[in-house]
Every structure is written in structure tokens, then in C-alpha cells.
């Protein structure tokens, strides 16, 4: 049975009709306690079927180690959204509920290769010299979460120093516990600086500065 109903497929097809560059959804599954891996693969394939510019690839995280290493994927299930190049857009878990928007936004941005950010934020990101990992913890039922997630994606598209990991907290409880995630969205920068809530760009910029200081 399809995950996406006809109406959603129609709307997604319309939305993704304007994709410029090809986009690959690179999915990593695992046999170790992955509750929704089957559905994640199915979702990637159903979304990929909505546009000739989209394809889905599936790898076993436990055996395709070199492939996972190439994308710096250290846990599964994971989805890498790759445009003309790998901009650093990752989704860990299944992008369902409100997070379906995050996936579609990521596809659009990876295809276009251009971020939707203000000049000050862009200027800061262009000046980055050290790697920045933004982990955005979300839940599918949180309507505020896509705002934090897509900001991280925009930042990753803007700078090749930034990797944006959107993490579905319920599917990665150990990671969520490690960062004491008890509310979402939560953005964690380089594992040492955090911003609670759907914060505007300048607050994430400040958190990046704090993490790199």
C-alpha cells in the first residue's frame, strides 16, 4: 500500500516540477533495530517517482561501509539529499508528519543549490573556516520544527563547511538522551552549543560563533 495518497502525490509532483538540477535521495538502512526502514525506503521511492529529476538509492549501512563513510553517515536510518554536489543535507529517521515538508524543502534547495538566507547570515557563513555540524532534533508532530530544520538546510547549502543533520528524536533516543532533548526543535552545534526553539538565523549564527570560540 502506498504511503502517499493520490492527492499528496499530485501536489508533490506539482511542487517538484520546477526542479533544476538532478537530486539523489541516498538512503541508508540497517537491520539493527530499525523500526521504519522499510517505510523510509518506500517513501524515498514514492517521492522520487514524482519527478524525472529525482532518484532514490538504497544502501545497507551495515555492509556498505565505504558508501556510508563517503557521506560521513555514522548511524542509520539516514537519508542524504544530494544535488549537483553533496551540500551536507541529512535526515535521520522517517520524515513523516510535519517533517515531510523538511524533506521536500531539502530536495528543492539541493536542486537549486542556492540558499534562501539574508545577506548578513550568508556573509558570516561564507567566512567560515572550520567545520560546523548542526544537529536539529525534531518530532513529526511538531509544527515549529520544520522552521529550524530548513534553516539548517539553508545554512548547509550556503557553506561547504556546514553539515545539517535533522534527527527524528523518537527514532534516536540514545542520541536525544545524550543531549538531554526534552523539547523540540533543538539545534545543537558541534555537540557543544544549543538553541532551543525555532530560532531566527542570527541566534544560530551566535551559537555557531560560541561553538567555534
Amino acid at each position, binding site marked *: 500500500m502506498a504511503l502517499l495518497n493520490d492527492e499528496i502525490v499530485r*501536489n508533490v509532483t506539482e511542487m517538484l516540477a*520546477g526542479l533544476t538540477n538532478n537530486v539523489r535521495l541516498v538512503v541508508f538502512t540497517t537491520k539493527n533495530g530499525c523500526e521504519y526502514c522499510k517505510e523510509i525506503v518506500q517513501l524515498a521511492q514514492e517521492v522520487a517517482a514524482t519527478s524525472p529529476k529525482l532518484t532514490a538509492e538504497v544502501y545497507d549501512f551495515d555492509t556498505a561501509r565505504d558508501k556510508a563513510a563517503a557521506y560521513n553517515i555514522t548511524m542509520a536510518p539516514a537519508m542524504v539529499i544530494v544535488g549537483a554536489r553533496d551540500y551536507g543535507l541529512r535526515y535521520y529517521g522517517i520524515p513523516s508528519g510535519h517533517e515531510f515538508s523538511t524533506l521536500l524543502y531539502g530536495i528543492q534547495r539541493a536542486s537549486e543549490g542556492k540558499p534562501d538566507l539574508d545577506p548578513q547570515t550568508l556573509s558570516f557563513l561564507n567566512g567560515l573556516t572550520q567545520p560546523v555540524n548542526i544537529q536539529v532534533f525534531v518530532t513529526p508532530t511538531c*509544527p*515549529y520544527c*520544520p*522552521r529550524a530544520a*530548513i534553516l539548517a538546510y539553508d545554512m548547509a547549502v550556503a557553506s561547504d563547511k556546514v553539515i545539517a543533520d535533522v534527527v527524528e528524536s523518537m527514532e534516536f533516543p540514545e542520541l536525544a538522551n545524550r543531549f538531554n532533548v526534552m523539547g523540540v526543535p533543538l539545534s545543537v552545534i558541534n555537540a557543544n552549543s544549543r538553541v532551543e526553539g525555532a530560532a531566527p538565523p542570527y541566534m544560530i549564527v551566535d551559537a555557531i560563533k560560541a561553538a567555534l570560540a
Partner: protein
Amino acid sequence: MFEFTLSPEPTKAQISGGVYDVVIIGAGAAGLTTAIYTARDGLKTLILERESAGGLAATTEMIENYPGFPDGINGAELLERFRRQAERFGAEIIEFDEVVKVNPIKVGEIEVHTEGGQVYTGKTVVVATGSRPKKLNVPGEKEFYGRGVSYCATCDGPFFKDKNVVIIGAGNSGLQEGLQVLEYAKHVTFLEFLPYTRAERILQERVKNHPKSTLLFNQQVTAIQGDKTVTGVVAVDRETKAEHVYPADGVFIYVGYSPYSAFVADLVETNKWGYIITDEKMRTKVPGLYAIGDVRADNPAQLSVSVGDGAKAALAIRDFILELQG
């Protein structure tokens, strides 16, 4: 089992631009209703939303008092239908960009500035920004936000599976959201400041009859305690003056709402709580500027009322634009 909510942000290139007949600030029930009416009427309509479309109603798990849905309906699903209906008639929606300023240039021309640096121009502008949860302003609330303190049970409820939760405020929102948390939590204690609750009777009965809940009145919360995360809530019984610490891993605060009106406070009249005062046609004192839904004064914060507000504003806008055209 899975739901997929389609609320993608259109890229700026997909927005037609130019002067809009109507710019609506806020894509909740009120704003989307105005958009359904105005877009269907052939008026060029833009909606700007700081978060994802749907507003407060979309965070409600089950809406049981909206006519036409005898079995109730999930809030996100209902508001997604509002959205699709507005888009079907051509309304354009931009999400995740917050309006920071409204600048009336002349009658029939109002600029709307966003945090993202965009400026949109509308012949009319509708403020439909709703309200946001009030802070309790006690020690620990700010420190433990995101570490056990939350204002959104829909978002954060699942983090408290088999844990103790305190819900502060036992009005409609507190009880409704608390019932949702009860699906996960080990125990939920409701602390209400008043000696009674104004919540709907059906919600009161559900909470009182729930085996994992305790409902306490006359409780003044004085602090939220914790270490790295929340460990408890301190409350004083207003009758006996006894202080008690309620152990808690999570605290959800529902002590009412305050209007999201600061960005137009210098333009419009507001009541002492900041809600925007309008006439019966939803007009503010600025020609072409309207206010609807929960941000409007004397509005009981009900979905059906917001829908009514949205329709009234749309009809007033039609007349206003006809007059502009002479």
C-alpha cells in the same frame, strides 16, 4: 500509520510578487478563511506565516466542537484542508518568515516587512497572528525550557513516556493537552491557580476519571526545580499556605495566551492586554488594515469564531477594494 503533512515553503521565485489586493499575516484558521474568500473572489491574495501554516488549532490533537465533524477531527488535518482550499483558489502562502513591521504608505498601499528582508505591498492587510502561550514567570521556567519545560504537548509529549508530568493550568488548553500527555506519561498532575476550572465539562470528566491523573485547585506555582533537567514543581496551596514539591520530569505550561500584536502596536488600538480593537467589520483605525481571530479583542479564542472573523474581514475587504477602484 504515518501522516504526511504537506506544507512546503514556496521559493520566492514561485511568488508572483507585485501589489497584492490582500496580504494576510498569519496562516491559522482566521487568516486561511479570509484567503479562501478573497482568493475565490478573484482578489490577489498572499499569506505570510512565521511558522508552518495551521496556527494554534493545528497543534490540537482532536477538535470535537467544530461543526461538520461528528466524530471529531485532528487539528492538523482540518487546517491542512483549510490551506488546500485557499490554495485551490490561488492564494499564495509563504511560511517560515516573520513579519516585523507594517507600514501604511497611503490609503490602498500598505507595506509589510519580514524578518527575511522581504517587503510585500498590499492594498489591504489583515493581522491574523493569533496569540502565543503566556509565560508563568517563575524561577526555573526559562532555565529549563527545552529541558523539561514545554508549551507544546503535541511536539514534546512523546519525550515523557512513563514519566511524571505536571501540567500548570487546568483550563481548556491545559486539560486537552494534558489528556494527550496522559497517553504517554506515568502520571500527570494538573495544578490550577483558581479554586475551580473554566474548562468544558467533558474535558473535566475525562481528566477526573483518568486513572493516571490528579487534578488540584488553588495551587500557586512558585518555582520549577531541576538539575540538568526538570525534577519538580513547587506550589503553595492558597488555602492552607502549605508548600509542596510535585516530582516531575516534564512541565507543560498552559496559563493562557497573549496576543501576537507587538509589531502593529504603534498603529492600532489595543486593549490593556494587547488585543487589537476592531469594529464589527474587523476594521482597525488604519484604513485597509484589519484584525481577525485570536489576536482581536473580545474574541473567545474558538475555531468557529476565528472562521467567522475571517469571513467578515473578507467581505469588508471586497467593499474596500471596490471603493478604491471608484
